Protein backbone atom coordinates (compact mmCIF):
# COMPACT_ATOMS: atom_id res chain seq x y z
CA UNK A 1 0.00 0.00 0.00
CA UNK A 2 1.15 3.52 -0.66
CA UNK A 3 0.15 6.59 1.37
CA UNK A 4 1.18 10.04 0.14
CA UNK A 5 3.92 8.55 -1.97
CA UNK A 6 5.43 6.45 0.82
CA UNK A 7 5.15 2.69 1.28
CA UNK A 8 2.80 1.79 4.13
CA UNK A 9 2.43 -1.59 5.84
CA UNK A 10 -1.03 -2.90 5.11
CA UNK A 11 -2.58 -4.94 7.89
CA UNK A 12 -5.55 -7.24 7.14
CA UNK A 13 -8.86 -5.55 7.85
CA UNK A 14 -7.39 -2.00 7.87
CA UNK A 15 -10.07 0.56 7.03
CA UNK A 16 -9.78 4.11 5.76
CA UNK A 17 -11.06 5.57 9.03
CA UNK A 18 -8.55 3.53 11.00
CA UNK A 19 -5.73 4.65 8.69
CA UNK A 20 -6.61 8.35 9.07
CA UNK A 21 -6.83 7.97 12.85
CA UNK A 22 -3.52 6.14 12.93
CA UNK A 23 -1.90 8.99 10.94
CA UNK A 24 -3.52 11.70 13.10
CA UNK A 25 -5.21 13.25 10.05
CA UNK A 26 -7.99 15.67 10.93
CA UNK A 27 -10.95 15.11 8.57
CA UNK A 28 -11.66 18.81 8.20
CA UNK A 29 -9.73 20.57 5.45
CA UNK A 30 -8.53 17.46 3.66
CA UNK A 31 -9.55 15.36 0.69
CA UNK A 32 -8.63 11.73 0.20
CA UNK A 33 -8.04 9.66 -2.92
CA UNK A 34 -8.10 5.86 -2.70
CA UNK A 35 -7.17 4.70 -6.16
CA UNK A 36 -9.56 6.61 -8.44
CA UNK A 37 -12.15 7.21 -5.71
CA UNK A 38 -12.08 10.76 -4.34
CA UNK A 39 -13.65 11.84 -1.05
CA UNK A 40 -14.03 15.05 0.94
CA UNK A 41 -12.42 14.53 4.34
CA UNK A 42 -15.72 14.84 6.22
CA UNK A 43 -17.35 12.27 3.93
CA UNK A 44 -14.70 9.58 3.90
CA UNK A 45 -16.37 6.16 3.99
CA UNK A 46 -14.99 3.50 6.29
CA UNK A 47 -14.00 1.23 3.43
CA UNK A 48 -11.61 -1.65 3.87
CA UNK A 49 -8.25 -0.98 2.24
CA UNK A 50 -6.46 -3.35 -0.10
CA UNK A 51 -2.72 -4.09 -0.07
CA UNK A 52 -2.26 -2.44 -3.50
CA UNK A 53 -4.22 0.74 -2.76
CA UNK A 54 -2.62 4.07 -3.68
CA UNK A 55 -3.83 6.70 -1.23
CA UNK A 56 -3.38 10.46 -1.28
CA UNK A 57 -4.43 12.78 1.52
CA UNK A 58 -4.25 16.44 0.52
CA UNK A 59 -4.92 19.93 1.83
CA UNK A 60 -5.07 23.45 0.43
CA UNK A 61 -1.89 25.50 0.52
CA UNK A 62 -0.74 28.83 -0.83
CA UNK A 63 0.17 28.85 -4.51
CA UNK A 64 0.03 30.80 -7.74
Amino acid sequence: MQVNGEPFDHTPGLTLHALLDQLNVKREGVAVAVGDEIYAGMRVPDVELKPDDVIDIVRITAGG
Partner: protein
Amino acid sequence: MTPTYSLPATTDALTIGGREFESRLMLGTGKFSDFGLMREAIEASGAQIITVAIRRVELNAPGHEGLLDALDLDRLQLLPNTAGCRTSAEALRVARLARALTGVNWVKLEVIPDPRYLLPDSLETLQAARLLVDEGFIVLPYVQPDAVLARQLEKAGCATVMPLASPIGSGRGLLARALIETVIDGATVPIVVDAGLGVPSEAAQAMEIGADAVLVNTAVAEAKDPVRMAAAFAMGVRAGREGYLAGRMEMRSHASPSSPTQGVVRLPDPEHPEVGSSK
Protein backbone atom coordinates in the same frame (compact mmCIF):
# COMPACT_ATOMS: atom_id res chain seq x y z
CA MET B 1 -18.17 72.25 -16.54
CA THR B 2 -19.35 68.67 -16.19
CA PRO B 3 -16.74 66.24 -17.42
CA THR B 4 -18.02 64.10 -20.31
CA TYR B 5 -16.15 61.07 -18.99
CA SER B 6 -15.31 60.11 -15.46
CA LEU B 7 -13.62 56.87 -14.53
CA PRO B 8 -16.22 54.41 -13.20
CA ALA B 9 -15.61 52.95 -9.75
CA THR B 10 -15.00 49.54 -11.24
CA THR B 11 -13.94 48.19 -14.61
CA ASP B 12 -16.47 46.85 -17.11
CA ALA B 13 -17.49 43.42 -15.88
CA LEU B 14 -15.48 40.32 -16.72
CA THR B 15 -17.56 37.15 -17.06
CA ILE B 16 -15.95 33.77 -16.45
CA GLY B 17 -17.84 30.55 -15.95
CA GLY B 18 -21.12 32.45 -15.80
CA ARG B 19 -19.93 34.64 -12.92
CA GLU B 20 -19.32 38.40 -13.23
CA PHE B 21 -16.26 40.08 -11.75
CA GLU B 22 -15.52 43.74 -11.16
CA SER B 23 -11.76 43.20 -11.12
CA ARG B 24 -9.60 42.08 -14.01
CA LEU B 25 -6.65 41.29 -11.79
CA MET B 26 -6.28 37.79 -10.37
CA LEU B 27 -3.83 37.10 -7.57
CA GLY B 28 -1.91 34.02 -6.52
CA THR B 29 -1.47 33.33 -2.82
CA GLY B 30 2.04 31.81 -3.02
CA LYS B 31 5.31 33.14 -1.57
CA PHE B 32 3.85 35.68 0.89
CA SER B 33 5.79 35.78 4.16
CA ASP B 34 2.57 35.34 6.18
CA PHE B 35 -1.19 35.07 5.77
CA GLY B 36 -1.77 38.56 7.20
CA LEU B 37 0.32 40.15 4.47
CA MET B 38 -1.32 37.94 1.85
CA ARG B 39 -4.77 39.02 3.00
CA GLU B 40 -3.81 42.70 2.92
CA ALA B 41 -2.35 42.27 -0.57
CA ILE B 42 -5.55 40.60 -1.80
CA GLU B 43 -7.54 43.47 -0.34
CA ALA B 44 -5.29 46.10 -1.93
CA SER B 45 -5.34 44.34 -5.30
CA GLY B 46 -9.13 44.26 -5.43
CA ALA B 47 -8.72 40.77 -6.93
CA GLN B 48 -11.77 38.54 -6.72
CA ILE B 49 -10.20 35.40 -8.16
CA ILE B 50 -7.52 33.88 -5.96
CA THR B 51 -5.39 30.85 -6.76
CA VAL B 52 -4.40 28.18 -4.25
CA ALA B 53 -2.46 24.93 -4.55
CA ILE B 54 -3.17 21.36 -3.43
CA ARG B 55 -0.48 19.43 -1.56
CA ARG B 56 -0.18 16.21 0.40
CA VAL B 57 -0.59 16.64 4.15
CA GLU B 58 2.37 15.94 6.34
CA LEU B 59 1.52 12.69 8.04
CA ASN B 60 1.51 12.65 11.84
CA ALA B 61 1.65 16.46 11.86
CA PRO B 62 -0.54 18.09 14.50
CA GLY B 63 -2.67 20.33 12.27
CA HIS B 64 -3.01 22.16 8.97
CA GLU B 65 -2.08 25.75 8.17
CA GLY B 66 -5.38 27.62 8.05
CA LEU B 67 -5.13 29.19 4.61
CA LEU B 68 -8.84 28.84 3.90
CA ASP B 69 -9.61 30.58 7.20
CA ALA B 70 -7.51 33.54 6.03
CA LEU B 71 -9.56 33.99 2.85
CA ASP B 72 -12.97 35.65 2.67
CA LEU B 73 -14.63 32.96 0.61
CA ASP B 74 -17.98 34.76 0.45
CA ARG B 75 -16.33 37.45 -1.63
CA LEU B 76 -13.53 35.61 -3.38
CA GLN B 77 -13.68 33.00 -6.12
CA LEU B 78 -11.24 30.29 -5.16
CA LEU B 79 -9.22 28.97 -8.08
CA PRO B 80 -7.34 25.78 -7.11
CA ASN B 81 -4.43 25.00 -9.40
CA THR B 82 -2.81 21.76 -10.48
CA ALA B 83 0.72 23.16 -10.07
CA GLY B 84 3.32 20.43 -9.77
CA CYS B 85 1.42 18.01 -12.01
CA ARG B 86 3.53 16.61 -14.84
CA THR B 87 0.87 14.63 -16.74
CA SER B 88 -2.83 14.92 -17.50
CA ALA B 89 -3.49 11.94 -15.20
CA GLU B 90 -1.87 13.77 -12.26
CA ALA B 91 -3.76 16.96 -13.09
CA LEU B 92 -7.09 15.09 -13.20
CA ARG B 93 -6.40 13.56 -9.79
CA VAL B 94 -5.47 16.91 -8.25
CA ALA B 95 -8.44 18.71 -9.83
CA ARG B 96 -10.83 16.09 -8.45
CA LEU B 97 -9.20 16.27 -5.02
CA ALA B 98 -9.45 20.07 -5.12
CA ARG B 99 -13.15 19.89 -5.93
CA ALA B 100 -13.80 17.43 -3.11
CA LEU B 101 -11.78 19.59 -0.73
CA THR B 102 -13.19 23.02 -1.56
CA GLY B 103 -16.55 22.31 -3.12
CA VAL B 104 -15.37 24.58 -5.97
CA ASN B 105 -15.47 23.24 -9.51
CA TRP B 106 -13.03 25.81 -10.90
CA VAL B 107 -9.52 24.68 -11.75
CA LYS B 108 -6.44 26.45 -13.04
CA LEU B 109 -5.10 23.63 -15.14
CA GLU B 110 -1.31 23.41 -15.16
CA VAL B 111 0.53 20.43 -16.64
CA ILE B 112 4.23 21.17 -16.42
CA PRO B 113 6.88 18.50 -16.96
CA ASP B 114 9.81 20.93 -17.16
CA PRO B 115 11.12 22.33 -13.86
CA ARG B 116 13.68 24.73 -15.37
CA TYR B 117 11.39 27.00 -17.38
CA LEU B 118 8.08 25.65 -16.04
CA LEU B 119 6.71 25.51 -19.56
CA PRO B 120 3.37 23.71 -19.87
CA ASP B 121 2.85 20.54 -21.93
CA SER B 122 0.33 21.57 -24.57
CA LEU B 123 -0.87 18.08 -25.55
CA GLU B 124 -1.34 16.86 -21.98
CA THR B 125 -3.05 20.14 -21.07
CA LEU B 126 -5.53 19.83 -23.94
CA GLN B 127 -6.24 16.21 -23.08
CA ALA B 128 -6.83 17.02 -19.40
CA ALA B 129 -8.95 20.07 -20.30
CA ARG B 130 -11.32 17.96 -22.41
CA LEU B 131 -11.80 15.41 -19.63
CA LEU B 132 -12.27 18.04 -16.91
CA VAL B 133 -14.84 19.97 -18.96
CA ASP B 134 -16.72 16.68 -19.42
CA GLU B 135 -16.69 16.24 -15.64
CA GLY B 136 -18.29 19.64 -15.15
CA PHE B 137 -15.24 21.66 -14.20
CA ILE B 138 -14.79 25.35 -15.07
CA VAL B 139 -11.36 24.98 -16.66
CA LEU B 140 -8.82 27.82 -16.89
CA PRO B 141 -5.78 26.30 -18.62
CA TYR B 142 -2.30 27.78 -18.25
CA VAL B 143 -0.64 27.49 -21.66
CA GLN B 144 2.08 28.60 -24.00
CA PRO B 145 0.96 31.55 -26.13
CA ASP B 146 -0.13 29.38 -29.06
CA ALA B 147 -3.18 30.59 -30.99
CA VAL B 148 -3.91 27.18 -32.52
CA LEU B 149 -3.88 25.52 -29.12
CA ALA B 150 -6.00 28.36 -27.70
CA ARG B 151 -8.71 27.77 -30.30
CA GLN B 152 -8.68 24.04 -29.52
CA LEU B 153 -9.05 24.74 -25.79
CA GLU B 154 -11.96 27.09 -26.51
CA LYS B 155 -13.58 24.39 -28.63
CA ALA B 156 -13.05 21.92 -25.79
CA GLY B 157 -15.15 24.19 -23.58
CA CYS B 158 -12.51 25.93 -21.45
CA ALA B 159 -13.73 29.04 -19.62
CA THR B 160 -10.59 31.05 -20.42
CA VAL B 161 -7.19 30.60 -21.98
CA MET B 162 -4.23 31.76 -19.89
CA PRO B 163 -1.09 32.30 -21.99
CA LEU B 164 2.20 32.94 -20.22
CA ALA B 165 3.97 36.27 -20.63
CA SER B 166 7.37 34.80 -19.66
CA PRO B 167 8.43 31.93 -17.39
CA ILE B 168 6.60 31.63 -14.06
CA GLY B 169 8.14 33.73 -11.32
CA SER B 170 10.78 35.19 -13.65
CA GLY B 171 9.54 38.79 -13.59
CA ARG B 172 10.79 39.21 -17.15
CA GLY B 173 7.58 40.79 -18.36
CA LEU B 174 5.68 40.52 -21.61
CA LEU B 175 8.34 38.63 -23.61
CA ALA B 176 5.68 36.73 -25.54
CA ARG B 177 3.76 39.86 -26.49
CA ALA B 178 3.53 39.23 -30.25
CA LEU B 179 2.33 35.68 -29.73
CA ILE B 180 -0.16 36.71 -27.05
CA GLU B 181 -1.60 39.17 -29.58
CA THR B 182 -2.30 36.23 -31.90
CA VAL B 183 -4.02 34.39 -29.03
CA ILE B 184 -6.19 37.44 -28.30
CA ASP B 185 -7.07 38.00 -31.97
CA GLY B 186 -10.25 36.03 -32.60
CA ALA B 187 -10.57 34.64 -29.07
CA THR B 188 -14.07 33.60 -28.01
CA VAL B 189 -13.29 33.26 -24.28
CA PRO B 190 -11.50 35.66 -21.92
CA ILE B 191 -7.72 35.66 -22.39
CA VAL B 192 -5.85 35.96 -19.10
CA VAL B 193 -2.15 36.78 -19.28
CA ASP B 194 -0.58 34.69 -16.57
CA ALA B 195 3.00 34.32 -15.35
CA GLY B 196 6.16 36.32 -15.71
CA LEU B 197 4.88 39.86 -15.23
CA GLY B 198 7.17 41.88 -12.96
CA VAL B 199 5.82 45.43 -12.78
CA PRO B 200 2.45 47.17 -13.20
CA SER B 201 3.34 48.73 -16.57
CA GLU B 202 3.60 45.20 -18.00
CA ALA B 203 0.13 44.40 -16.73
CA ALA B 204 -1.08 47.64 -18.32
CA GLN B 205 0.54 46.65 -21.61
CA ALA B 206 -1.07 43.22 -21.54
CA MET B 207 -4.45 44.86 -21.04
CA GLU B 208 -3.75 47.49 -23.72
CA ILE B 209 -3.23 44.80 -26.35
CA GLY B 210 -6.63 43.37 -25.45
CA ALA B 211 -6.07 40.79 -22.73
CA ASP B 212 -9.22 40.43 -20.64
CA ALA B 213 -7.39 39.99 -17.33
CA VAL B 214 -3.98 39.27 -15.84
CA LEU B 215 -2.86 36.96 -13.08
CA VAL B 216 0.16 37.79 -10.92
CA ASN B 217 1.71 36.31 -7.84
CA THR B 218 5.49 36.59 -7.48
CA ALA B 219 5.59 40.22 -8.68
CA VAL B 220 3.41 41.14 -5.71
CA ALA B 221 4.63 38.65 -3.11
CA GLU B 222 8.31 39.40 -3.73
CA ALA B 223 7.95 43.19 -3.92
CA LYS B 224 9.58 45.09 -1.04
CA ASP B 225 6.09 46.29 -0.14
CA PRO B 226 3.68 43.62 -1.43
CA VAL B 227 0.52 45.47 -0.38
CA ARG B 228 1.54 48.63 -2.19
CA MET B 229 2.56 46.61 -5.26
CA ALA B 230 -0.82 44.86 -5.22
CA ALA B 231 -2.53 48.25 -5.39
CA ALA B 232 -0.11 49.37 -8.11
CA PHE B 233 -0.97 46.31 -10.22
CA ALA B 234 -4.66 47.07 -9.77
CA MET B 235 -4.02 50.54 -11.21
CA GLY B 236 -1.90 49.13 -14.04
CA VAL B 237 -4.62 46.69 -15.03
CA ARG B 238 -7.25 49.39 -14.80
CA ALA B 239 -5.25 51.89 -16.87
CA GLY B 240 -4.52 49.27 -19.50
CA ARG B 241 -8.16 48.23 -19.76
CA GLU B 242 -9.33 51.84 -20.08
CA GLY B 243 -6.65 52.47 -22.70
CA TYR B 244 -7.78 49.44 -24.65
CA LEU B 245 -11.44 50.47 -24.53
CA ALA B 246 -10.53 54.03 -25.52
CA GLY B 247 -8.84 52.66 -28.66
CA ARG B 248 -5.23 53.54 -29.33
CA MET B 249 -4.06 55.88 -32.12
CA GLU B 250 -2.58 54.48 -35.31
CA MET B 251 1.22 54.31 -35.33
CA ARG B 252 3.18 56.26 -37.95
CA SER B 253 6.69 55.83 -39.17
CA HIS B 254 7.35 59.62 -39.10
CA ALA B 255 6.57 62.49 -36.75
CA SER B 256 3.30 64.40 -36.94
CA PRO B 257 3.36 67.85 -35.28
CA SER B 258 0.83 68.42 -32.54
CA SER B 259 0.86 72.23 -32.98
CA PRO B 260 -0.45 74.09 -36.06
CA THR B 261 2.01 74.27 -38.96
CA GLN B 262 0.50 77.61 -40.12
CA GLY B 263 1.45 80.95 -38.56
CA VAL B 264 4.75 79.84 -37.07
CA VAL B 265 7.02 82.78 -36.02
CA ARG B 266 10.24 82.61 -38.06
CA LEU B 267 13.36 84.80 -38.40
CA PRO B 268 14.72 85.42 -41.88
CA ASP B 269 16.82 82.54 -43.15
CA PRO B 270 19.83 83.94 -45.13
CA GLU B 271 19.76 81.00 -47.52
CA HIS B 272 16.02 81.44 -48.20
CA PRO B 273 15.37 85.21 -48.16
CA GLU B 274 11.52 85.19 -48.37
CA VAL B 275 11.27 87.51 -45.31
CA GLY B 276 9.17 86.43 -42.39
CA SER B 277 7.43 83.60 -44.23
CA SER B 278 5.85 81.06 -41.97
CA LYS B 279 5.41 78.55 -44.78
